[in-house]
């Protein structure tokens, strides 16, 4: 307790140095917390856009279907299947279930006027699709498709590329299940503007009943079953359980994360980057701590000699310096957490628009819209403890250096 009080007193005696050192550490803490919040926010936004517009929480298809997609092949229509009603009922019974829809995905060439462009066509059942996805909430012009419609809904970028408006004619040319050319034609019924660039650029929504006849597949065939659950964490858990259930079948279950390998890789790199930056800032902080302890020891050479003469052991002197450094760490971590918390509050509450910051189409990532920060208790706890540990470790060697001074030399060092 005596040593603790002594260390605290020393910190108070050198308030300016303590404050500057704590400020350096606080900067590291703030940077880490904001970067972490940004990363979580970016991933939340990206995965959110994937779930709302591309692959919902859980997707089920034939194993070969996923294998070909993974090989960058086109969605294979020969992997279309007719879902068993009993299986569908089972899926509706799973905990946290919200909605289920079935789709047929196929590649096509979108043609209008002189131009053509490769697209992914998603043949959908309007009602169930709306319960799983959010495309209809981002309708910019026209109407959403319904059963019996020969019209399609396209993204705003595709519409701009072809200079198309509602009522303009389109043709979709594709290979049917037997590999023959087939076409779908009609009018543009709706134009959507979503935060998912891939959807805006190259996804076409068509009514399932119109597409089925031209795809040479059986009437009730689908390529994927898509499920929306109550939340993402639940989805990951349920996807694992369902995958185990389907393990012995020809089907494969994927979560939204499995379907977004690129995002998962970016997430891993992002965290690596955050920790690298944290390490750099803390290195500066650690050098500062070493410097502070050495300076403090040089200033207090006589004091150290006196303490040793009065019977304080080397270990105890080391403890004083280490507690002092730890104290600076605690002040820095507290200050950083407090200021980081305030800044993050505004980030979480108001966020900022990504529009104009970069071109999501060029990036090819579903990263557009408004980016909000995120609260992570584990990040706060981690950085708080980590900073204290770093400061304590950084002070040990200079503390030993100070404690090993000979008491007689120390007293008469001048």
């Amino acid at each position, binding site marked *: 307790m005596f040593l603790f009080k002594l260390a605290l007193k020393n910190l108070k005696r050198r308030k300016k140095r303590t404050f500057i050192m704590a400020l350096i550490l606080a900067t590291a803490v703030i940077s880490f917390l904001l970067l972490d919040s940004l990363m979580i926010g970016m991933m939340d936004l990206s995965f959110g856009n994937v779930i709302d517009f591309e692959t919902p929480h859980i997707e089920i298809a034939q194993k070969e279907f996923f294998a070909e997609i993974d090989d960058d092949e086109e969605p294979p229509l020969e992997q279309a299947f007719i879902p068993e009603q009993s299986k569908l009922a089972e899926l509706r019974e799973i905990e946290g279930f919200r909605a289920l829809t079935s789709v047929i995905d196929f590649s096509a060439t979108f043609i209008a006027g002189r131009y053509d462009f490769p697209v992914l066509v998603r043949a959908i059942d309007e009602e169930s699709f709306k319960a799983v996805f959010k495309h209809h909430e981002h309708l910019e012009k026209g109407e959403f498709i319904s059963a019996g419609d020969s019209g399609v809904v396209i993204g705003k970028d595709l519409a701009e590329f072809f200079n198309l408006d509602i009522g303009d004619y389109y043709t979709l040319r594709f290979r049917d299940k037997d590999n*023959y050319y*087939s076409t779908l034609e009609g009018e543009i019924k709706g134009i959507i503007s979503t935060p998912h660039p891939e959807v805006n650029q190259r996804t076409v929504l068509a009514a399932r009943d119109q597409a089925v006849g031209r795809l040479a597949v059986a009437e009730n065939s689908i390529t994927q079953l898509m499920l929306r659950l109550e939340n993402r964490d639940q989805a990951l858990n349920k996807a694992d359980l369902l995958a185990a259930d389907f393990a012995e079948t020809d089907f494969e279950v994927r979560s939204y994360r499995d379907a977004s390998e690129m995002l998962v890789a970016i997430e891993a790199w992002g965290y690596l980057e955050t920790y690298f930056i944290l390490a750099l800032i803390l290195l500066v902080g650690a050098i500062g701590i070493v410097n502070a302890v050495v300076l403090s020891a040089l200033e207090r050479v006589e004091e150290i000699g006196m303490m040793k003469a009065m019977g304080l052991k080397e270990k105890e002197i080391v403890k004083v310096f280490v507690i002092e450094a730890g104290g600076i760490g605690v002040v820095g971590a507290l200050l950083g957490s407090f200021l980081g918390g305030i800044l993050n509050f505004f980030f979480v509450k108001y966020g900022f628009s990504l529009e104009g910051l970069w071109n999501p189409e060029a990036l090819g990532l579903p990263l557009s819209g408004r980016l909000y920060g995120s609260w992570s208790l584990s990040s706060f706890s981690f950085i708080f403890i980590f900073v204290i540990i770093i400061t304590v470790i950084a002070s040990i060697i200079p503390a030993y250096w100070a404690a090993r001074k000979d008491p007689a030399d120390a007293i008469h060092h001048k």
Partner: protein
Amino acid sequence: MFKNLNVYLLIALFLSFALLLCFPLHIAAEELSAEEIMQRVDENEYIESGRMEAQMIIEDRGREIVKEMFSFIEGHNSLSEFTNPRDRGTRYLKLDDDLWMYFPDAEDLVRISGHMMREGMMGSDFSYEDALESQRLSELYDFELEGIEEINSREAFVLSGLALEDEDVSYYERKIWVDKERFVILRDEYYSTGGRMIKELDVKELKEFESGRWFPVRAVMNDKLKAESQTTLKVLELEFDYDIPEGKISLEELQ
């Protein structure tokens, strides 16, 4: 009575014979089955081995882009190289059902697959898939003779063909006009499964080669799904039964 009958029979026989002499080819041609017609077409148009120099004129919204190339053809396989300044050195290799492209600037080899196969070759109305179709038509489609029509001032058989099962073809249905005398396709219409015409090939000029073999030397391909779209293929030089050096049509040669 019998004497008169004999005279009538003699006259009828004479007239029939005279008719036969006057229109021998006509009757012979009209009696051909669709299969026989297509076999004769394949005999003319299928190249066992050859060397061809050609020009591709792409008409795109009022602009005209001319591409020149030469090709070595050996049955189902071929190697083509573009020689016009803009594309000089760009090569295509077709080996059975696979197609590779070589870009000289990047010194890169690309296998053409997926949606690229549906795109126009070098921006033309001939898709890569069209380029891949090099088998005899009679092996790919089951043709039926529909009648005879005049096209480009030539009498032609009109045949419609449905794709044969297990044959990997792009178009479910074809309708072709075959010159009655020269057994060369004068027009070829390509249809989707839904019966929509996707492309149309109109042969504008034929040439008789040394062996008496007729071959189309100027044809215009129209992508019927696109507006203002037309590509003319002009054969400048064609040598049948060309002795292609061994290994010429290979991946090694492509690079």
